[in-house]
């Protein structure tokens, strides 16, 4: 338990550090949301100045940060000028949508990658393995931007899939099953983009760590005693390879979130990514900070889950503390 608590405390420290860092970066920005307003002849300069004072934009950076911390305590995470509402209420639905996209995509990618990698490892050097290696190399060469556009092209040309958005226009009228179906239908393209982006890395790692385990003496001993190959591969070898694979899960989350940003933006999935891009274009600084923090939070949460799984899977970690 101490292990998990330490990870949690570390995560909180990182979060605090990231908030300071993003505050400093955005403070460098020339102008804020109100400087656009200043150009508007219909708004009196006194009004803009009054707004500036009211929202504390005239104060020095450390004070601004304290104000922001105060609003974090209230659960607002600052104020978005563009949407005229607290940042938190904008972030949560978007973060939920990002999770709705990334969690199923990651789960599916792992469900496909583990058997595929295991198979590739057991076929080592034969044509199946080579085919797998060739395919993963080719996929690794395709950047997320290109893959997203290609899938979009596919959707537009075949007309089988919706081109963007998360739900249909008539979503509200559907029953619970219909709603789920509609959501899954819209999820298909962005999720397959993420799966295809994730898959090659995962397959390669699964293959590499299984090959390492299969060379271990205990595997040979088990084989000599006549344990079936399939049982050996999926039960024993996979369990022994759990440690590097679960570490990979933690490490791959950062890449997943970055890829998700691009895919969300291209396929107009209303997640955190498009929100951040809009906020940057509108100079909505608190929203930018909020979105960046939120992505860090997702990343840390993902890492924490991976750590917890690792803790459960690897008895050595538990034994260390005893």
């Amino acid at each position, binding site marked *: 338990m101490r292990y998990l608590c330490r990870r949690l405390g570390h995560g909180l420290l*990182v979060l605090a*550090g*990231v908030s300071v*860092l*993003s505050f400093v*970066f*955005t*403070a*460098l*920005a*020339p*102008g804020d949301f109100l400087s656009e307003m200043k150009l508007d002849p219909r708004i009196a300069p006194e009004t803009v100045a009054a707004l500036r004072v009211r929202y504390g934009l005239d104060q020095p950076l450390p004070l601004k940060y304290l104000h922001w911390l105060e609003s974090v305590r209230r659960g607002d995470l600052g104020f978005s000028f563009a949407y005229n509402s607290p940042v938190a209420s904008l972030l949560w639905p978007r973060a939920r949508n990002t999770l709705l996209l990334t969690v199923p995509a990651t789960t599916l990618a792992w469900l496909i990658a583990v058997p595929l990698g295991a198979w590739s490892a057991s076929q080592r050097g034969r044509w199946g393995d080579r085919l797998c290696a060739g395919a993963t*190399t*080719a996929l*690794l*060469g*395709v*950047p997320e*931007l*290109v893959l997203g*556009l*290609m899938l*979009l*092209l596919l959707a*537009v*040309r075949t007309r089988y899939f919706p*081109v963007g958005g998360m739900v249909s226009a008539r979503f509200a009228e559907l029953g619970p099953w219909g709603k789920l179906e509609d959501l899954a239908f819209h999820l298909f393209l962005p999720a397959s983009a993420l799966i295809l982006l994730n898959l090659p890395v995962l397959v390669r790692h699964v293959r590499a760590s299984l090959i390492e385990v299969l060379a271990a003496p205990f595997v040979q001993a088990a084989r000599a005693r006549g344990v079936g190959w399939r049982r050996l591969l999926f039960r024993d070898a996979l369990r022994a390879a759990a440690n590097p694979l679960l570490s990979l899960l933690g490490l791959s*989350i*950062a*890449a997943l*979130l*970055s890829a998700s*940003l*691009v895919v969300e*933006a*291209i396929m107009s999935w209303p997640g955190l990514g498009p929100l*951040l*891009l809009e906020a*940057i*274009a509108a*100079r909505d*600084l608190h929203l*930018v*900070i909020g*979105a*960046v923090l939120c*992505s*860090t939070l997702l*990343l*840390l949460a993902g890492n924490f889950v991976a750590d917890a799984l690792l803790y459960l899977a690897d008895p050595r970690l538990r034994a260390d503390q005893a």
Partner: protein
Amino acid sequence: MSLAARNVRTSLSLLVILYVSVLLAGFLTPYAPTEQNRDMPFAPPTRLHFAEATGRVHLRPFVYRLASDPRSFGEYSEDRRTMYPIRLLVRGAPYRIAGIFESNIHLFGFNERYGRDLFSRLLYGGQISLAAGLLAASLALGLGVVVGGLAGFYGGWLDETFMRFAELFLALPWLYLLLAVRTGLPLHIDPAQAFLLLVVVLGLVGWARPARLIRGIVLSGKLREHVLAARAFGASDVYLLRRQVLPQAAGVALTQLAVLIPQYILAEVTLSFFGLGVGEPVPSWGNMLAAAQQYEVLTSYWWMFLPAIALSTVSLLYYVLANALHQQMMVLSS
């Protein structure tokens, strides 16, 4: 020669060919990247012919002029009355060097939204994207070597501070971090400035990973016997770091470069794609691809995806190169 060594050679030579052709864009392309033919938006690539409709075969390839259909927007047909043979090394439009100039028709056609030659834009855009990748990766690696070298060599509080800082940078999803830093810069800047700022931002964002790697090597490298011997002879810290310790990290640095460059090319493309990087009218693969998001482009103009193909080729080549380099290092170090 081993497979890895062969892979290094093949990918490296293909990359060199790509870089050289992009560098010589002025010579290889028929048009300036911003030259417009307003009558011909989205014209398809011009087809090369060897045989006339009558069956006469020519050795020198030729093209027909494309005529736009006055009834419908964006539809073109070939005007078969006159043929234009392709000549090489013709004194062309306003270029410093004589370009390969195909009479008054082009190999790839005027086929972009604003009637600019796509092939020319592809090569000129490559100049921006590839140069941004190269410069930004060098900057990030340079910073990484300095920070990692100092942190690893001196250790103590310096190491602590640098590495805690690096952890912060690594804690963020990289694209979110990049966008956060990008927020600190003005939105609308002219392309030359945008290019420089982009390089600096990318370099600043990416130092953490190479710094960690280099630090690890320096940490173990400073305890090697030849380093200890040099220290015992009274060598200065600067000498030790520069001549004895850092050279041990050369292999890793090289591999890192092959990993970082495509990542940064992609970063430039992504930012420009979202309108946060290099902007019109200067071409970059990113802002060229931005056009490919439009519905009419998706449905009918496949050639707008050419930058995507170029981008994938480059990143695939770099991936093969990095992989092969890594394998070579393993062989050398074992």
